[in-house]
């Protein structure tokens, strides 16, 4: 009647019951804790009843054959993964993701290993069964990781050295690869040790270069461009920065938040908004909540979108933006960069005061395109 399994669950149920009583008496007759402990007790009692009913956990009757089970690295790897996972929750998301990958990979390997070990009585056959199943996955994954490291290292080198040195080193590296490849092809009799030696030296060289490159950092013009707000740079006057990327629209997530897409097409400015079937000349934007406008230029000349931020009666700006607010020609406004035909850029603005508080309406305009203005109404 009482086997190991049922004894375990009966013991646990007793322990839960004891806790429940102690909690209610000594801690608090509070809903959540008491209900939770009652549920734990109920669940354990239920399990004990099932185990009793089906006579599970009768280990004398079904001895386990332990002889075939070899040593395994996977339990350890799984634990390392779990530690990474927990660490990631506290420290940084990247460890969390890494943890998930390690845990899943280790569990998969562990599962297959455990399965293969009980596949037959012949360890050699078992090992080959495992390999047949896992090598087609393991090899491509390892190769991809290796390639990734090489490519990443190479990119660090290219970002650190000057543009022309980059071109030269790329040509040299490519020629070396070609030469050595040709050598291998022409001399099939070369010793395997030599071949792999050459490959390892090449890989180590690139990785070492990559580490050095990462240490040096970005070359100066790239660093400067980043500092100038390479991607989300805003200026209303003459462009001062030299390096910014006019076509970049870094914040992909902004696309899903667009209150409106403002298009300049055939000299006309209009707003496209989800839910409205025709282009609009009026945008209603909610108050005190950042709204994003995406500006698309279809005009052959470089254009920018200018958003007037209004003038609250108290004189303070009525809106905030993600860019530099410019007091440009006496106006309180913010702008996208000048962007060429086909490019797009986002502008995020928070209108804190309603339209009725403005002496002039909030507008979106494009300098040089006369008579086209979109009004932003803030209730």
């Amino acid at each position: 009647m009482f086997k190991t399994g049922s004894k375990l669950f009966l013991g646990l149920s007793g322990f839960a019951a004891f806790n429940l009583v102690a909690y209610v008496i000594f801690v608090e007759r509070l809903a959540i804790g008491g209900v939770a402990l009652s549920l734990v007790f109920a669940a354990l009692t239920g399990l004990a009843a099932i185990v009793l009913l089906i006579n599970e956990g009768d280990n004398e009757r079904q001895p386990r054959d332990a002889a075939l089970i070899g040593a395994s690295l996977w339990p350890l790897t799984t634990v390392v993964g779990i530690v990474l996972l927990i660490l990631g929750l506290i420290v940084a998301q990247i460890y969390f993701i890494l943890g998930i990958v390690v845990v899943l990979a280790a569990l998969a390997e562990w599962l297959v290993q455990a399965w293969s070990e009980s596949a037959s009585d012949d360890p050699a056959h078992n090992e080959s069964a495992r390999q047949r199943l896992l090598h087609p996955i393991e090899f491509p994954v390892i190769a991809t990781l290796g390639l990734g490291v090489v490519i990443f290292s190479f990119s660090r080198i290219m970002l650190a050295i000057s543009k022309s040195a980059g071109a030269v080193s790329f040509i040299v590296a490519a020629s070396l690869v070609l030469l050595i490849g040709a050598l291998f092809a022409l001399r099939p009799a070369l010793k395997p040790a030599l071949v792999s030696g050459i490959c390892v030296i090449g890989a180590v060289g690139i990785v070492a270069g990559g580490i050095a490159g990462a240490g040096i950092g970005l070359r100066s013009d790239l660093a400067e461009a980043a500092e100038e707000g390479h991607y989300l740079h805003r200026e209303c006057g003459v462009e001062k920065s030299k390096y910014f990327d006019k076509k970049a629209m870094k914040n992909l997530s902004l696309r899903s938040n667009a209150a409106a897409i403002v298009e300049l097409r055939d000299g006309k400015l209009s707003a496209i908004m989800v839910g409205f079937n025709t282009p609009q000349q009026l945008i209603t934007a909610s108050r005190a909540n950042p709204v994003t406008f995406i500006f698309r230029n279809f005009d052959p000349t470089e254009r920018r979108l200018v958003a007037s931020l209004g003038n609250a009666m108290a004189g303070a700006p009525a809106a905030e933006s993600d860019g530099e607010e410019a007091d440009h020609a006496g106006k309180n406004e913010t702008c996208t960069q000048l962007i060429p035909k086909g490019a797009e850029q986002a502008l995020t603005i928070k209108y804190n005061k309603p339209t009725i508080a403005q002496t002039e309406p909030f507008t979106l305009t494009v300098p040089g395109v006369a008579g086209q203005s979109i009004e932003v109404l803030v209730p």
Partner: protein
Amino acid sequence: MKVRRLTSRYLGPRSLAASGSLLLLASCATNAPQDTWQPKGPNAKMIDDLQQPVFAVAGIIGIIVAACVGFAIWRYKDRGQPIPEQTHGKPALEVSLTVIPALILAVVGVFTFRAIFDLARTDDTQLVINVTGQQWWWEYDYPVQNEWGITQPIISSGQLVLPIGTKVLLRETSRDVIHSYWIPALNGKRDAVPGRVHTLRLQADAPGIYAGQCTEFCGLSHANMRMEAVALSDADFAKWVANQQAAYQAPAEGTLAKEGESVFLNQCVRCHQVSGLKRADGSLAIAAPDENVWSGAAPNLTKLMTRNTFAGAMFNLLRDACRDDVWRAESAAFGEKYLGGVDESCLNVNDLRAWLRNAPEVKPMYANPALLTDTNGKYRGMPNLGLSESDIDKLVAYLLTLK
């Protein structure tokens, strides 16, 4: 209705039994405004048409599986019999047990995908309403849409008013944390996420009130963040729109309401906008919720008494009898009753006064000035303003004019 704390009175063994029987009772309630099985519009109907057959099929399969498991447990339990012959696999059985569920799922999948895509359509929209969630109430603003007579933005809270038989598109977002908009009778739920605009189709077949609830845990008063969709006939909706845009009428000089207006200017205007309200010097009173409230917004009270609820639809503005009168009205009579708004005889004066006396006591909110270090001194919710009873008298008189 008063908010009571969960105390030991509610607990003990009785609570378990009670929640069990409640669950049982809830399954056969007739007056359940948030019942997901009672669609009242085409979008919800589409979901219902999917869930009914799936539920039936899944239920039958569930019963069969449970019966098989029970039979196997009982029939083959360990009675000390010898271990039976061990066979490995039975391909025909295994393949059919894989293929049949796969087929069922494939069929369900086809219809599910179709419904998902139909529910995601935005190109057939007839009316757009912006919906913004914040702790712990919903704001609605109606963008200018001349075809509906909306020539200036309308802003409201708590009750979403929409015309029947119209494909309404909500553009949802949030000012603080993630909320979720759900009117079970009209459609599924859709998260309102800060920094994103999500769309949700709504369409109601008949005039009436459809209740809902924020369904993404959003902090202290999540459970009190409710909403109602009010569907009106086209003609009634037009009347509602016209009234929402009507100019502000200041109370007559010398009335209690006029005194209330000046209390409002002193105490309330720093958070609440009443469009058209002027200060004593003739300048427009512009609220600054962005400077006082963490989410940056407080309900616009311009037309407070045209709504039936307040504070995230947690409280009724109408006394119970008047509210029942509106809720239970026949479709044809509903619009007129709803558009009547709230007058003095119907005002739920107790809850409104309690709110003005000490809001955080009746709705849990982070409004203790001593504890606002995380939010730079800004409130989440409405604080206790320490008003005197006579100020409250004046304010109630004033608020009654906002319709």
